[in-house]
């Protein structure tokens, strides 16, 4: 029982820190609220889909920027997609860098795009790690007999 209380406390504190540090926003809360008995893993499933899509897009962006004649229209469309999916799961920091990235695409500024790509990779990597930690803590809590409630 004591470990359940401790795990619950850790989960609440960790989740709060992710919001305070700007990694997540209220869209993530909405995602969690869409979970119920018939869809208990909804948030995990959707976030996993986001990881797959984001990694594919980041690879395509890198390929696009390594080509001699950069197709900025295509790049912009891909960044737009990344912004859309990151915003929909509440990955706020990733979404913000995508806005700047799109501006560089519009200006056809290769160096700006390369810098943005590096930043978005870093932010993606951070939020992925944090979400994986969050979901791991939830699994540990469930395994200990506790229940995961939405923030």
């Amino acid at each position, binding site marked *: 029982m004591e470990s359940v209380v401790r795990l619950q406390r850790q989960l609440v504190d960790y989740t709060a820190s992710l919001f305070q540090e700007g990694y997540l926003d209220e*869209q993530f809360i*909405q*995602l969690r*609220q*869409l979970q119920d008995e018939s*869809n208990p893993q*909804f948030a995990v*499933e*959707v976030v996993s*889909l*986001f990881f797959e*899509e984001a990694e594919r897009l980041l690879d395509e962006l890198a390929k696009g920027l390594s080509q001699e004649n950069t197709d900025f229209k295509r790049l912009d*469309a891909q960044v*737009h*997609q990344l*912004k*859309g*999916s990151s*915003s*929909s*799961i509440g990955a706020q920091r990733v979404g913000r860098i995508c806005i700047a990235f799109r501006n560089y695409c519009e200006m056809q500024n290769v160096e700006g795009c390369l810098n943005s790509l590096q930043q978005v990779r870093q932010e993606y990597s951070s939020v992925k790690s944090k979400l994986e930690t969050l979901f791991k803590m939830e699994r540990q809590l469930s395994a200990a007999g506790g229940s995961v409630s939405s923030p």
Partner: protein
Amino acid sequence: MEEGESCSARRELTALVVDDQEVLRRIHGRLLKDVGVSHVEAARNGKEAIDIHRGGQSFDLILMDLDMPVMNGIQATRGLRAMGVRSKIAGVSARNEGEGVKEFQEAGLDLLFPKPLTTLHLSSLVTQIKPL
């Protein structure tokens, strides 16, 4: 008494989510079910949405993304209206004003929502829809 008024059972709402990104199809589909839409289908682009309708299906509500490959939301909305589709079509776009959004509205949308969609956006919309 008009046909249908004597029937006390209210038909449940149906919706079609049109978006090229699976993450968005999943979230929007779940949001719709959460506000009481009982049957939700999905299409990956405007062409699939049109093909679904050509196949004889119809929906009370269509959530139409703007930016999609093969056929975008503007073309799909125009196409559906030209086919005589009377469903409520709600455009969903992350674009800012002036970036083709006006053209999207003029293609035949009933309303336009920004991305990301929320339960609040959809719950008020759903109360306005009468089943076709």
